């Protein structure tokens, strides 16, 4: 293990390290902690200039209730209705493309694989005008469906990269043995490969959930207004409504950031497996 395990060093150094950890963490998260502190302050603290001192009273419940009675819950529901179908769609499509590219040898295999990878890295702006037109033409502008369709298509690039590499690492003998038995190819997919892909599906789902939840660019390009916009875009109108009311804006930001944070803490192992693209074991 590198660096040298701390247990093997001086006692003083060990205590020093243990003391350093919380300090470093507080410094690292200071900007976020500041916002958390803002979100429980009363309005009056800001007018008397008490930004960093002890709050004159704790208004956590009141501030957060204000957030939940604004249009925020609408935006959050929109985010869920955009994120969950995207996760399902992109994971389903990429299970199939990943299976095709990971198991079969055919001409153009690597070419298609690289096309998916390259597409996943292109700047959004090169797609913006045509995708917006396409969505308008289909009558899906300013709908959740329009946003979901695009997200599914775009995320398929990244998901295919992930799934293909995962399937490629499965023991190929399993598939050969099934073929010798005369099992149809689609059954090999359904009954043999798919059950083995569960960890990859879990990892990708958590990751895509976070990516889509946090998307802002496509939200402002393809939607406007309360009925379709996700919370990342909605928070700007929320802030416009409560301009200069920092206690409410802070509380709103924290509420908007919460779902992916919970997702991360609940599914940490899968999340990290997903982030490393399976390439760093």
């Amino acid at each position: 293990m590198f660096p040298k395990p701390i247990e093997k060093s001086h006692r003083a150094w060990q205590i020093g390290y243990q003391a350093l950890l919380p300090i470093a963490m507080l410094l690292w998260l200071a900007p976020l902690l500041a916002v958390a502190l803002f979100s429980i302050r009363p309005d009056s603290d800001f007018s008397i200039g008490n930004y960093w001192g002890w709050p004159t009273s704790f208004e956590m419940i009141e501030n957060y209730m204000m957030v939940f009675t604004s249009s925020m819950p609408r935006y959050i529901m929109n985010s869920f209705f955009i994120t969950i179908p995207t996760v399902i769609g992109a994971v389903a499509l990429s299970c199939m493309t990943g299976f095709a590219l990971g198991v079969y040898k055919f001409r153009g295999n690597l070419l298609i694989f690289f096309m998916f990878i390259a597409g996943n890295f292109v700047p959004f702006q090169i797609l913006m005008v045509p995708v917006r037109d396409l969505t308008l033409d289909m009558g899906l502008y300013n709908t959740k469906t329009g946003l979901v369709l695009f997200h599914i298509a775009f995320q398929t690039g990244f998901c295919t990269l992930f799934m293909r590499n995962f399937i490629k690492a499965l023991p190929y003998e399993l598939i050969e043995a099934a073929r010798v038995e005369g099992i149809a190819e689609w059954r090999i997919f359904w009954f043999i490969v798919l059950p083995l892909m569960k960890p990859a599906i879990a990892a990708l789902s958590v990751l895509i959930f976070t990516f889509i939840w946090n998307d802002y660019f496509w939200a402002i390009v393809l939607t406007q207004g309360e009925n379709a916009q996700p919370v990342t875009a909605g928070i700007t109108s929320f802030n416009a409504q409560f301009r200069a009311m920092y206690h409410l804006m802070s509380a709103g930001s924290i509420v908007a950031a919460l779902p992916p944070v919970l997702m991360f803490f609940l599914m940490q192992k899968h999340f990290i497996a997903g982030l490393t693209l399976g390439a760093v074991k």
Partner: protein
Amino acid sequence: MAITTQPIPPLAKQSWYRRNEIAVTPWLFLVPGLIMFAVYVIFPIFQSFRISLYKWDGLGTLATHADYVGLANFEKLLTRDRAFYTSLWNNLKWLIFYLAAIPAGLFIALFLNQTVRGIRLYKSLFFFPFVISQIVVGLVFTWFYDPQYGLFNGIIGFIGFEPINVLGDPTLSTYGIIAAGIWPQTAYCMILYLTGLNSVDPEQIEAARLDGAKGLRMLWHVILPQLRPATFIAFVVTVIGSLRSFDLISIMTNGGPFGSSRVLSFYMFEKSLSEYGFKMGYGAAIAVILFLIMMVFIGYFLWRMYQDEKAASR
């Protein structure tokens, strides 16, 4: 449905599908994904190239409502548009300074790669900034920099400096935003390196220790070579992330003050979809240039991956 094992009929009697199953199946599995990807990603790239040759306000269709202007959009961009060069220059700043997230991530990973009690929680908390959306990161840092009540000015005031309005100063705004972007990106690189450090070969470390290597020499000659896959991915995601920067700029300064913090991705959006008018053709031309810049990196990544594929299939 139960799997019934029937005797396999002789080849001639089998259906066409059954005979060609292994050749046809991959394409059947690819079709839905390929169609979606082609419609929403591949074709739009070519369409953007085409739109960049037109003067178009986005109304009607390209064929009926737009004027073909050839390369005039590019000519104007490259010769007469100072805002374009400001954006390009800022993109370069992003690209260079954003890379600091890689050594910073490595540093934190080395700091946290211990097995003391509660270390798992610390690792998650250090990773935290990456999980929250860039919009929230942007808001948090806007308040952090606020000249009146921000923590940043609280700290430098405590040391004895005059307050600085980071985001209101044309020479500082871009650096202020980059610093905000480095925060979550460092967390990402940290997690890549933590996973990489887990798989470093302990025998090699022991052998190097017996040879008297330690500290920085050990890191440079023994550990870093083994972390190359992690470094490669960290490099890929950081470069792509830096060229994609949009959310933070949009939230923190909206390109200002005086357009000083624009980058190409933001400038393109502003030209195409802002209150200043819908210049789709001009916007598409900016997007094409950004795309070509990114293709240099994408090409390099693909080439590296191709080498790995070749090595793996040998």
